[in-house]
């Protein structure tokens, strides 16, 4: 039975910067994988611009805590310790990926890191944290469970059902809305009349806050408040305000929004903000460049490894529909042979 770990320590701005830079760099490589025609499909949702949400919240989590993410979850997963090589391989649909090439970008997971799964269904992963929190509370493990989702998921009824249950049962559950202002081509104010999202959570009895995502330290501080509360039995909600720098998925060029808006959004870059803050605090630019370079090299390697990796074998198709000791589904071709043998 997993127990929760100690309070996180590596939470200074430099550590945050490194993590955010790793995410940025990884996502850029994902884009490259797509351009090189090596990704499995085009359903790649980059979290560039949202690094502070991932890093700020994840740095307030502890070992043993569990979480689910939405379709734009690479950054969150990295911030919780994912191996970029296995991630990239999964995104390329390869056998060496986290899910052996079956899941892909939108269905990546690692139980050993508490990642209960990314989800391609908007809102689909939210109620699982209620269940995980219930389990943690019953077993007294001290774990909490965090659901990460986008502003678009505020349209899904299951979120409210889940928040209501978490509040009713005082569960160690936290709902984190990464409000990047857009759900595909729909701006938040085109999806709802009230854009102060945390009011909704408060109306169900959750501790609820909204935080500006520009400064990762503020995100971390807000997340720490909300998470600590949840661990003590007061579930919470945190909206992190940021901006989706690029299109919805890799092919989308966002024709539905203005360059001016994009420029304004991108000017609130949490990675650049942290970099500037580090420099202002006396860190040498050269040192930062070194960090960036080391990260770029690490991430670059993941892309080559992913491209070189093996495709999953065809027989894998029948594996893991059910647990390994159960018979696998009979392949159609074999069934046809059998039926027509008519012996």
């Amino acid at each position, binding site marked *: 039975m997993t127990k929760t770990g100690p309070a996180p320590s590596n939470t200074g701005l430099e550590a945050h910067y490194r993590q955010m830079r790793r995410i940025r760099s990884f996502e850029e490589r994902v884009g490259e994988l797509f351009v090189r025609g090596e990704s499995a499909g085009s359903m790649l949702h980059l979290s560039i611009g949202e690094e502070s949400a991932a890093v700020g919240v994840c740095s307030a989590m502890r070992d043993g805590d569990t979480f689910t993410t939405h379709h734009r979850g690479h950054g969150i997963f990295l911030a919780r310790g994912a191996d970029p090589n296995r991630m990239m391989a999964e995104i390329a649909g390869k056998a060496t990926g986290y899910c052996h090439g079956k899941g892909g970008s939108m269905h990546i997971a690692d139980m050993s890191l508490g990642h209960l799964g990314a989800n391609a269904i908007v809102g689909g992963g939210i109620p699982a944290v209620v269940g995980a929190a219930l389990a943690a509370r019953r077993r007294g493990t001290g774990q909490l469970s965090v659901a990460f989702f986008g502003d678009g998921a505020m349209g899904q009824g299951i979120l409210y059902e*889940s928040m209501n249950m978490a509040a009713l049962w005082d569960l160690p559950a936290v709902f984190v809305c990464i409000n990047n202002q857009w759900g595909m081509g729909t701006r938040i104010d085109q999806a709802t009349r009230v854009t102060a999202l945390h009011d909704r959570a408060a109306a169900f009895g959750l501790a609820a806050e909204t935080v500006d995502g520009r400064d990762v330290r503020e995100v971390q501080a807000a997340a720490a408040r909300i998470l600590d509360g949840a661990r003590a039995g007061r579930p919470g909600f945190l909206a992190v305000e940021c901006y989706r720098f690029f299109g919805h998925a890799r092919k989308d060029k966002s024709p539905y929004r203005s360059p001016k808006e994009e420029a304004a959004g991108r000017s609130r870059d949490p990675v650049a903000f942290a970099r500037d803050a580090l420099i202002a605090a006396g860190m040498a630019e050269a040192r930062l460049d070194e960090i960036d370079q080391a990260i770029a090299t690490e991430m670059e390697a993941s892309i080559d490894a992913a491209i070189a990796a093996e495709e999953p074998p065809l027989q894998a198709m029948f594996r893991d*529909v059910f647990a390994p000791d159960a018979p696998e589904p009979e392949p159609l071709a074999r069934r046809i042979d059998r039926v027509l043998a008519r012996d």
Partner: protein
Amino acid sequence: METLTYREALRRALADAMEEDPDVFVIGEEVGRYGGAYGVTKGLIEQFGPDRLIDTPISEAAIVGTGVGAAMAGMRPVVELMYVDFIGMTMDQLANQAAKIRYMFGGQIGVPMVLRTQGGTGRSAGAQHSQSLEAYVMHTPGLRLAMPATVADAYHLLRQALRQPDPVVFIEHKALYALSEAVDLAAPVPDWGRAALRRPGGDLAIVSYSRQLHHALAAAERLDAEGIAAAVIDLRTLNPLDFETVRGAVEAAGRAMVVSEGPLTAGVAAELAARISEECFDFLENPVLRVAGEDVPISVSPGLEAASVPTPELIVDAARRLMA
């Protein structure tokens, strides 16, 4: 031997499983204080407390999702969906999440959740409380499906379901709760995934499950009086499906009928008939007959309700023609 009702056997199975395994818990609407809409969980909250009989708000989708998360976190949730008719609100959590998690995540983890629910006609409960929706489940890769017809199976299939590493949809029949049988729960039962030959017979094989099993048995009794020996098979689980038992009976008899309460078109009866037709082709002297629910919603009028699903009379009548 003791005499138990189907309802009591289910309750006993839950209680025994909860005794044995502290990770088993029940969650759903009215499962605790109320004791379940059909009384199955009555008394369990007194025995196991509100942490293990968790009453929920009316939030079917999130309840099933909660079960998924708890199962992934190592618990053994029994999620109760009050009526299978409400499955429509939960299908995403059931079919896109529970059913696919093991597969999508490359075998990292399973979702050992049992979704207990009940369906079928018999209480004038109308179009939204009387359906037989097992075909949706049977069609979904990744879900197991058990449908007990007898008191012993109410107990044993539920115990077995609670030992499966994957999600099991467990559909009871509302018209069977009061069924009372003398059972010896210590007697051997077929393994999980094995059908039961409930009545031997060499002239005709009738394949059924859940409440229609009883109609099939009643029909077989009457047919017997007419000199027609009908074998009656109780599938017990639709996934896994024990086709070998079906094959044996059908090939021996050369004539087959499948009986299901769900609507005819693209239902469980279609799968069974298609499979028998293809696999036992050379043995069939007549087409496999599908006796199933009419392709209509269920009316609240008791007369229309009863006529919407197979009756023993219809089965007898169809069997006679099939033998002619």
